[in-house]
Each structure stands twice: as C-alpha cells, then as structure tokens.
C-alpha cells in the first residue's frame, strides 16, 4: 500500500517497517500472491494430469507425437488415440471432478457442516431414480446432444433439488439449513426405496445396467456428452465464482454474515442453485461418484487453510486432477478389466477420510 516514497502514507517509517515485518510473518493469510500461487500450483497439477492421463492405457502413446502437427492427423495414430479415444474421457473426468469438489465446498459452507457433500441433499437420489426410470422403461427421448439416460438423470437431479429447496424456504425468509439437511436425508432414503422397487420389478439385464450406472463411469465414448453438460457446468462455475467471500461469512453464522453486509437469503439461493447445477451436470455425465465432493475439499483445507477464496478454486482444480487420476487407476490397475470409477474413488476416498477423521478427532 504505502511505499517509502509515498509521502501521503499516514504511517511513520518505523511503524511501517514493523507492519511490513508483521505482514511477512503471516503465512496463512489470503493475499493476492498466495491466492494466485495456490491457483497456479493446483492449476499446473490439473493440466499436467489431463495431459499425461491420455498417454497411459492399453496402447502407450507419446505426447510429442500426439501434438506433432507435421504428421497428418489421419496418419497419426498417437494423435487419434489421444484426441478421439482418451481425451473426451479425461475432460469429462476433469469437469465432473471440478464440479463435485466445488459443489462439496459450497454445500459444506451453506449447511455449515464439514460432513456435507454434493449428495447430502438428495440430488444424487433424484438423479438415480431418473436414470433407473430411463433404463427400466427403456426411454428413448433425447433433447439435442443429451441422450435419454443423462436427460432423465438431469431431470431427476433438478427435480430433487427443487423439491428440497421448496421445503426449506418460506417466502421472503432465509433458508432453514436444518430443514434443508433433514429434507435431503429423508429424500435420499425415499429415493433409494424407489430405486430398490424399480430394481425389484425390472429384468436382470436392466438391473445390471442400472447397477453399473450407479457405480459411476466416465466411458462416455466421445465429446458429445461433455459438450452437452458444458453449458450447465459453465453457469454453475460462474455463479460459484461470486461466492467465496460470502461463504466465509456464512460459515461463521448467518446472523454474523448479515451483520457484515452479506445478503444472506440471496447468497444461500445462489449457493444452493449453483452447487445443485454442478452436481446435476456431474451426475448426468458420470453417474453418482461419491467421496470426491467430501475428500477433496478436506484435503485442500489441510494444505491451504480454510479461506474459501483459496479453498474453492483449489478444490475445483484438485478435484479435476483427483478424478482424472482415479479414472486412470480404474482404467489401468487391473487392465484389461476396468473397475467402475465410483468403486475406485470410494476405495481411495473412504479409508483416507476415516484416517482424516481419526487424526483430527
């Protein structure tokens, strides 16, 4: 702020030096340099993961050759495998990972509960019911680039989110987070009963398909599903970008936030809508993949502290890298057999989270 030549600076030189020393001593505070460094660090990690993950698989390819523009694309097998076979899946993984991780951060602050995740409020239950209905009844309705199952998933997720929202809001009043939580948990239980009922009345093949969907999967077979989910996710990310400061205030308490100038009802609305959109888009793309939304934010907090202006972008980027990494493991660990992605994230995420709980408890 005040440089030595700044004669209008109200601080005396001695105090100024003392204050510089004081600033230098603070490592944990969010400064512009620290936010940029964190975003840069996690950004490089995410980009590297997305560039390197497509190189690994049943056929090994070279990054240099894949990006070698002197070879015509039609003759460049490495480029074809990189861009057509593997990149869509990696990009979908990055999008879903970023979406679920940032939705997790937003829900945890909105509900003032570090154990909340993107699926706490029934969004995944609604999505699963949608997917089950589409699979069991062989729905063939598609809109634009959205094929039947993702479309039904999206509708189910949005329906559940809308229902929970209506239950927890009374006109003109701030959202009741306890009603939100209870309604979400109850809806999840209700939806899982519906899912079991649908499985009970479905044929064996349909049940298998549905089970497979519930395990999560990024094998999307091309760019179309990514492009279909992109607008929704983009809206969600833009809305989420407005939230970090207000989420800090909200996580102290809604009255505290209001007394610091936050429009609590409006922020809660934006937080709920954006996180639900990100979750719905993610689930429609990859199925209900657990643990990303809870493990990634907590891991990031261990590294960078709890200020949402750092945690939110870092979680989105680390979520992308984490899910792409997990998918890489799912594809290659027991190659040629592929393990469903939801199993990998839960098997890595579950024990890790327990360790975290025990360590911090």
């Amino acid at each position: 702020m005040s440089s030595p030549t700044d004669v209008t600076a109200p601080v005396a030189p001695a105090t100024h030096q003392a204050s510089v020393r004081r600033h230098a001593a603070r490592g944990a505070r969010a400064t512009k340099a620290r936010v940029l460094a964190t975003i840069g660090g996690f950004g490089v990690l995410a980009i590297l993961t997305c560039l390197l993950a497509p190189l690994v698989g049943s056929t090994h390819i070279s990054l240099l050759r894949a990006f070698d523009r002197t070879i015509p694309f039609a003759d460049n097998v490495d480029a074809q495998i990189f861009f057509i076979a593997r990149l869509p899946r990696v990009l979908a993984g990055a999008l879903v990972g970023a979406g679920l991780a940032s939705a997790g951060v937003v829900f945890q602050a909105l509900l003032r509960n570090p154990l909340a995740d993107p699926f706490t409020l029934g969004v995944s239950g609604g999505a699963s019911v949608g997917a089950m209905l589409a699979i069991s009844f062989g729905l063939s309705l598609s809109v634009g680039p959205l094929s039947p199952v993702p479309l039904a998933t999206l509708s189910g997720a949005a329906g559940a989110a809308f229902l929970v929202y209506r239950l927890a809001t009374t006109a003109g009043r701030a959202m009741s987070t306890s009603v939100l939580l209870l309604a979400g948990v109850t809806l999840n239980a209700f939806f899982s009963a519906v899912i079991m009922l649908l499985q009970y009345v479905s044929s064996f093949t349909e049940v298998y398909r549905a089970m497979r969907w519930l395990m999560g999967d990024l094998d999307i077979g091309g760019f179309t599903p990514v492009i279909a989910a992109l607008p929704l996710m983009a809206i969600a990310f833009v809305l989420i970008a407005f939230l970090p400061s207000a989420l800090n205030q909200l996580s102290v308490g809604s009255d505290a936030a209001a007394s610091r100038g936050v429009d609590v009802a409006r922020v809660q609305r934006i937080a709920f809508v954006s996180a639900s959109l990100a979750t719905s888009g993610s689930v429609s793309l990859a199925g209900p993949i657990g643990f990303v939304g809870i493990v990634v934010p907590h891991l990031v907090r261990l590294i960078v502290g709890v200020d949402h202006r750092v945690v939110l972008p870092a979680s989105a980027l680390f979520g992308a890298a984490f899910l792409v990494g997990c998918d890489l493991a799912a594809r290659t660990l027991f190659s040629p057999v592929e393990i469903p992605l939801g199993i990998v994230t839960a098997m890595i995420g579950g024990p890790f989270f327990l360790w975290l709980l025990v360590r911090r408890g």
Partner: protein
Amino acid sequence: MPLSAQHVSYTYTSRRGAPSFALRDVGLAIERGSLTGLLGPNGCGKTTLLRLLAGIVQPHAGTVTLDGRALGSLSRRAVARRIAVVPQETHPAFDYTAIEMVLMGRHPHLGSFALEGPQDVDIAHDAMASTGTDHLADRAYMTLSGGEKQRVIIASALAQQPDVLLLDEPTASLDLGYQMEIASLLQRLNRERSVTMVMATHDLNLAASICDTVVLMREGRIQAHGATGDVLDGDAVKRLYGVEADVRFHRDAGHLVVVPVGRAR
C-alpha cells in the same frame, strides 16, 4: 440520534399460524456515544430488538433509522460499515485463524472479489491490539479459551470500524474474570473510540458497572429508559424479574450493585 426505532413491531408466527408479538410498538433513541444496557427477562424481545437495530431482520411495522435514514433503504454493506454486532457465542464451521476471523470484519469495506490489503491487515492488528489478542493472531480460533474467543470477536467487530456496536449478552458464557475483562474492555472502547454501544444482558451488575443508560423491557415493550442511576432500582428488578433485590451504591466498586434477596410475593 445515530440509531433509533420508531413504532417498531415484530411478530413471530407460531406453528399453528397464530401470531405472537416479539416486539410491540417500540420506540427507542440511542444517544450518540452512550453505553446502553438492554435489560429484561428471557423472551422479552431483547435479541429481536438488537437484530432489528442491526438491520439483520426488517420490522413488520415501524422503522429503524440510522442518522435519520431508514435501515431498509440502505444497502446491507452500508449498514454494516456503520453497525457491528457481537453475539453471545460464535462457532465457525471451519478452522479459521484468529486473524482470519478479525479480517472478516473488513468485508463491508471490500468489494465482492477483493482480498484484504495491507491497510486492512493494519486495521485488524490494531483492533486485536486494543482487545489484547494480537499475540493470538495465528492461533486457530477454535482452540482459544472462551474469553479469548469473545475478545477476538469484539476485535472483528472493531475491524468493521463501526459507529455503533450491538452486543447480545457478550459475557454470558464467561467466568467472572473474563466478565470483568470484557466489561472494562467495552467501557474503554466506548470512551476511547467513542463507539456507541447497546448491550443486551442478564447481568444486572455488569449493566450497573459500565452502562450510563439502561432500557428496561418486558413482554415486547419498553418499560423505562433513562440514566442507570435513575432507572435501575429494587422496584425495577421486581417488575422485570419478580425478584426482591437490594440495589444500592457500592463505594468500593464505584457503582450500583444488585443483590437478589428472594422471589417477590
């Protein structure tokens, strides 16, 4: 009058839909620079009145004005730059450091995307210094003792640089030592920084020791408002709480003390 309420009513709706008044036609003018105690039994509307004065909720009838302008006509940030609130207890959901908690008080002075600059950090450290918490800056807020937490929260309210500080039973969960500490801190801040303060409290001796003015509330209405020495007496305690009390000047303490004697018959 920086802060005043005119004909303010606020209603809670019960589950059966029957309205129950929390505040009924309340008029109150807070003198600039005063330290006003808000006294009354549980459920008399003290907290509701503080929330209305802070603009956290809007009255169902009447207006709350800050320097003559209705709070509802000001932006939330504009109100927060003038009025800060210290609640009874603060439990953040995440493990913020003390300095982070204090810096959050700068929120109304910053844009949505702005980070605190060196000037904000200096203001925060200044606030921590005057509440004796600067040495705790890098400690995790949740690991602090009750008294330290409350002093950090008061620092975060000071970092807001308010003209008016509203406190809701700031010493209720503290032991006697911390109560005295917070009391003298508030008195000092009121004098040195000329911050107008309104403090809801059940602690009549705290009010008697630091408040120059007291407001007595009962069943959503204001019963009396005046200089502590004029208003706070045995009769008032009996009316508010149904308790016989001996209220007298204590020469060593230098202020009125209230000794409850028994339930009034």
